[in-house]
């Protein structure tokens, strides 16, 4: 077992850190105020080919292995303070992976180059107003009518939803079958009659990530827009979650590295009672916990990424990864605010934003409680 990054991975990491520091320094607060999407930063990330990383060159991708893509996301989470943008990019890559893994040649040829170039924004829509954790009890229907599917229903909280050019939508195609065989997955393009993208919700954090409701009213799409086979949606969902629960936590590890570094610097410089506050054990312990969780988190993220890259199953590893890293991120951000004292609570120090952004990480991609359920089920309980 060798935990060192390869030379290419080191240089990828360094180039993304350099890029993010020089090109992604937009004033996040102004975007938070007006609720808009940082398009310039998105385009720069596309030019940097971050969204193209894990895709084959024939679709305009970089052909990087999944572990290297995960290292890139970790670097981006570290050097880019805009966690909403990082999440939007993660969503784009994850949509591409679903298309790569399950799409037919025509679908791959059509959509993957657009994903790689960041020319079109993609989203995936599973959650509904009445079904989140119990995702497969969804009510949205896609009924076959001749050479089309007609979709009716609505999806909620969808990342990139309000600005998406194409959405991977999960819907029931056979209500007689149990969820695992009765759900399918199809691609709906912006502008399709009957497809409405509602305006973004106001959120606690991740403000630059736009989340919204999508409504389908007799929305007709051709049969060729089905991703995978009819009835394969439930399995595509389970499979996709393994990639998602590895890729998004990679960015969270990066954020934790940044938060930890900022906190170390601050507690060394800040004095109280004639000594630096870092010399007080109850402050130092918080930093030690951050470091411990970063190191442990890296091991599980990299392990899950390696397994996925080798085409292996990582159901258990990806759930452990999702649960551990998101809870660690939330704790690290809360502790970072605490060790910064009053300054940590003020927006100027930008630590409070990391805390607000971190809260959602234990909710999306399956809540902490759902990860506990999955882990215990996989242990035979």
């Amino acid at each position, binding site marked *: 077992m060798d935990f060192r990054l390869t030379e290419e991975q080191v240089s990828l990491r360094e180039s993304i850190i350099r890029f993010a520091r020089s090109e992604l320094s937009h004033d996040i607060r102004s975007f938070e105020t007006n609720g808009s999407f940082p398009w310039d930063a998105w385009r720069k990330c596309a030019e940097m080919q971050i969204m193209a990383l894990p895709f084959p060159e024939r679709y305009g991708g970089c052909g990087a292995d999944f572990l290297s893509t995960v290292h890139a996301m970790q670097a981006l989470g570290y050097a880019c303070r805009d966690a909403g943008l990082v999440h939007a990019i993660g969503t784009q890559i994850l949509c591409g992976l679903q298309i790569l893994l399950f799409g037919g040649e025509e679908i791959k040829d059509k959509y993957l180059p657009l994903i790689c170039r960041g020319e079109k924004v993609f989203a995936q829509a599973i959650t509904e107003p009445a079904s989140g954790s119990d995702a497969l009890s969804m009510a949205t229907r896609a009924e076959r009518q001749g050479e089309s599917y007609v979709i009716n229903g609505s999806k909620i909280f969808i990342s990139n939803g309000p600005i998406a050019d194409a959405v991977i939508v999960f819907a029931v195609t056979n209500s007689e079958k149990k969820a*695992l065989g009765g759900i399918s997955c199809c691609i709906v393009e912006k502008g399709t009659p009957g497809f409405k993208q509602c305006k973004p919700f106001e959120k606690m954090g991740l403000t630059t990530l736009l989340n919204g409701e999508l409504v389908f009213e007799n929305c007709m799409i051709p049969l060729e827009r089905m991703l995978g086979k009819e009835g394969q949606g439930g*399995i595509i969902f*389970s499979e996709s979650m393994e990639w998602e629960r590895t890729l998004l936590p990679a960015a969270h590890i990066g954020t934790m590295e940044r938060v930890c570094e900022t906190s170390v610097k601050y507690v060394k410089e800040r004095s109280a009672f004639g000594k630096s506050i870092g010399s007080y054990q109850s402050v130092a312990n918080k930093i030690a916990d951050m470091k411990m969780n970063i190191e442990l988190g890296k091991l599980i993220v990299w392990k899950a990424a390696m397994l996925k890259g080798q085409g292996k199953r990582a*159901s258990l590893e990806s759930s452990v990864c999702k649960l551990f890293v998101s809870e660690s991120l939330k704790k690290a951000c809360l502790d970072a605010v605490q060790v910064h004292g009053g300054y940590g609570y003020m927006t100027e120090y930008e630590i409070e934003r990391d805390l607000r952004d971190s809260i959602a990480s234990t909710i999306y991609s399956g809540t902490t409680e759902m990860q506990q359920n999955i882990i215990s089920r*996989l242990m035979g309980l």
Partner: protein
Amino acid sequence: MSVNEMIKQFISSELIPEGSEVPLTDTDHLIDSGIIDSFGIMSLLGFLEEKFSVQISGDDLIPENFESIATISALILEKNGYQLEV
């Protein structure tokens, strides 16, 4: 033990809460009866890939392949011709 029996043993002990009262047959519907649900499919795939050293991905990941012990077994045999008799 045959492939069918190994699969049956796994499903009976791991995927059916409290174990199976009525013995499973090779053609019982595992998805329609709810024995294989969204959690169960993860467990089952993990078991199959490890036990039979196969990779199940892409077009193989269709519900039809997991409908019964017979179809799961057929998938495994098609993937590597594996047959273990004890």
